[in-house]
């Protein structure tokens, strides 16, 4: 708890404490934010409070893709222009925003809300895996694209899902692995370089 909260007026101290709970907000930042709200107009403060309440009250998980949404099914799942034969599996809702920015992928998504992490005791039942398998039953999905972060936990998750999905007769692919734009070969690790060589592309 920030030390200032004991000397500040009770409502201000409460606000400071609440800000302090947010990720990445230390005691000083919490004070600064609280005093900003104090000086802001009533309209501005109300807009902030309402925005916070709104996300809690109106946002749910899409019953199909498990993304966060205010309408169920979400706008992507209910869209008639999107390809229903492809599902792109991601770790977190924010990953969908990143993929959507590319405007390349036209299929639908599935959010796992985490990755398998044997060392932290996160197992299959803690993720939205049942829901994913449930979507593959009717035969309309031809390909599942694993867009999971390329690290050890991500690899475990990707290989685990591959083992689960392949017997259902659905193709499982994963995002290519290689050098990021602006990278330097000198600093590349051997796993990345090996994959980059294996997946090399003809020029032009």
């Amino acid at each position, binding site marked *: 708890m920030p030390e200032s909260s004991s000397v500040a007026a009770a409502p201000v101290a409460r606000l400071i404490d609440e800000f302090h709970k947010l990720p990445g907000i230390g005691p000083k930042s919490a004070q600064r934010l609280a005093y900003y709200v104090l000086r802001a107009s009533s309209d501005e403060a109300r807009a902030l409070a309402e925005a916070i309440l709104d996300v809690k009250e109106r946002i749910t998980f899409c019953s199909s893709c498990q993304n966060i949404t205010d309408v169920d099914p979400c706008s992507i799942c209910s869209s008639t222009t999107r390809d229903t034969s492809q599902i792109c599996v991601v770790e977190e809702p924010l990953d969908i925003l990143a993929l959507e920015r590319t405007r390349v992928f036209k299929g639908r998504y599935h959010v796992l809300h985490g990755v398998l992490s044997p060392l932290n005791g996160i197992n299959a039942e803690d993720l939205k895996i049942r829901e994913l398998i*449930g979507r593959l039953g009717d035969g309309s999905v031809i390909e599942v694209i694993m867009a999971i972060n390329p690290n050890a936990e991500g690899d475990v998750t990707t290989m685990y899902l591959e083992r689960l999905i392949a017997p259902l007769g659905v193709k499982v692919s994963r995002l290519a692995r290689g050098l990021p734009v602006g990278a330097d070969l000198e600093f590349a690790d051997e796993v990345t370089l090996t994959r980059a060589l294996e997946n090399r592309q003809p020029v032009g």
Partner: protein
Amino acid sequence: MRPQRIYTTEAIVLRVRRMGEADSVLTLLSADRGKFDAVARGVRKPTSRKAGHLEPLTHSTLLLAHGANLDIITQAHTLHAFLPMREDLRRLGGGLYAAELVDRFTVEREESFPIFRLLVETLGRLGEGEHVDLTLRYFEARLLQEAGFRPQLYQCVTCGEALQPVTNYFSVAGGGAVCPSCRPAGSGLPPVSVTLLKVLRLMLRAGYADVARLRLDESLMSELESLLRLAVHRQLEREPRSLQFLRELRRPYLAAAIPPDAAPVP
């Protein structure tokens, strides 16, 4: 002379925890400084020069700077990525299990080169050959030994008499084998067959090459597994977290994750 501000070491990454926007805290097992935590800044950005060299289960050479609290990794270069181990779910799961055990059995900043070498060798072995289970059993037995919990396999831990070539019993609390006459009546001590005792003795005495030549049938392997697992649990006082995952991988198909109505029709 002032102490050096930077130093190099060879280490295996045991565990990675996220910190802040793009940093991570790594638990490292180094060859010459034991286990310790260090900060890697910016490794979660896609253009990080260090990220690929600091993945869990990577053996790297590192340049570190002394930090106020945790030391900071300034450069990293992979020595072994153990690529073959990473390409198979069961092998990778085994590697993570080994890393967890090492993390739990070691004490911070206590140099333990034998354990470091055991882990490097185990991660290498997990990528080759068919003996994933035997590799893990050998690892468990050796880790117990290196951590100071070598079981007594030559004399009865109760009466001290040399063990006879009959089925003996194993007392985890007693730290070794118990002869039939010392076995408390009605106790649930697991039996140790003559063959199992010989295998355990060989594992603690001989190199892996000799152990790998053994042809152990399934029932012996599972006896070996439950005995070593019992001994590991006893020291850790709880089940390793990654064990549940390894168990799940053994099931014929991963039933836990499939809803009843979507189960594949045989």
